[in-house]
């Protein structure tokens, strides 16, 4: 991001709209969880822990709760609708055409709107970009998970739009 600030700006704006803006019927916690889940499938250490910590902050839960969702969301005490959306996000991670009509119909029957389906697919797709950007250039990431948890409240407060890569 700091290497090329001009491309960082639209990347941050996209994250801000998809993850932080409040005019969305998916909660911030749900949207961050979709990002963290896709990042864990992509094995991106930095992204899964940044966004897992954000979800943990919004859900007011512990780290185990987030890890359970990442490992086996069907076993986690979350809504059936969120499970249906995570299933779609998992298919997007494999490739767009892996999303089936049955998955979409199931999510719709559980109350998911077109906008929520759109955002789920775009969040999952955006993390397939962010994860590859971070790992494709072999960037440095703090190994201690607490670092990410400590930063989450500040990021939740400030959002992503003016995100400073040096902070």
């Amino acid at each position, binding site marked *: 991001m700091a290497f090329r600030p001009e491309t960082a700006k639209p990347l941050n*704006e996209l994250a801000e709209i998809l993850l932080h803006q409040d005019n969305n019927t998916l909660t911030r916690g749900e949207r961050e969880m979709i990002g963290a889940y896709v990042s864990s499938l992509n094995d991106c250490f930095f992204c899964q822990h940044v966004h897992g910590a954000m979800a943990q902050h919004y859900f007011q839960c512990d780290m185990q709760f987030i890890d359970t969702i990442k490992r086996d969301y069907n076993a986690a005490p979350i809504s059936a609708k969120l499970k249906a959306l995570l299933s779609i996000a998992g298919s997007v991670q494999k490739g767009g055409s892996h999303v089936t009509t049955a998955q979409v119909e199931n999510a719709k029957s559980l109350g998911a709107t077109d906008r929520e389906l759109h955002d789920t697919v775009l969040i999952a797709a955006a993390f397939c970009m962010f994860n590859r950007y971070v790992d494709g250039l072999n960037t440095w990431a703090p190994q201690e998970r607490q670092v990410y948890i400590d930063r989450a409240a500040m990021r939740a407060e400030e959002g992503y739009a003016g995100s400073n890569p040096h902070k």
Partner: protein
Amino acid sequence: MPHIDVDKNLPGIRSLLAFSPETAEPMGVLANLLLRSNDGLSMAERELIAAHVSYLNDCFYCHQSHGEIAVCYLNGDRDLVNKVKADYENAPISDKLKSLLSIAASVQKGGKQVRPDQIEYARALGATDKDIHDTVLIAAMFCMFNRYVDGLAAHTPSDLSTYPPRAKQVAEQGYGNHVFSKNQPV
């Protein structure tokens, strides 16, 4: 049929951008920064990277669209574009571009698939840090666009003659919200 209710008169990603103009805005800015520049890599080279990654992701709409935009920049050389998409190692392009396409192909599989020796090889052939950065981000960006289009089952025209007029529009005016807010070129 698309998974969500989008404008039936718009093809592919254009229908999705119109459905969500707010997210379309930063995506258009990003596409212009990465694809509409001759700084280091030419616009043709950038579109070839995009078309190759889209081909690997099996996104017909995107590899057809960006392949045709590359054709515009390459004076109509569709044979070259098709060769780069499917078999760039044997295409008549520079070794430097081949080394960058190899990095892009690794990014398509996953960020961690990029090996240090691929980066060193590209550098030895004259690739700058910015060329490598842009290659990785173009490849990553198309891993997003391709999934966005196919993940929502956006309408993909099967009539190949419909792609060149849209490609010409982008080659002349760049990316941005005009691609869905103006009448579609035919």
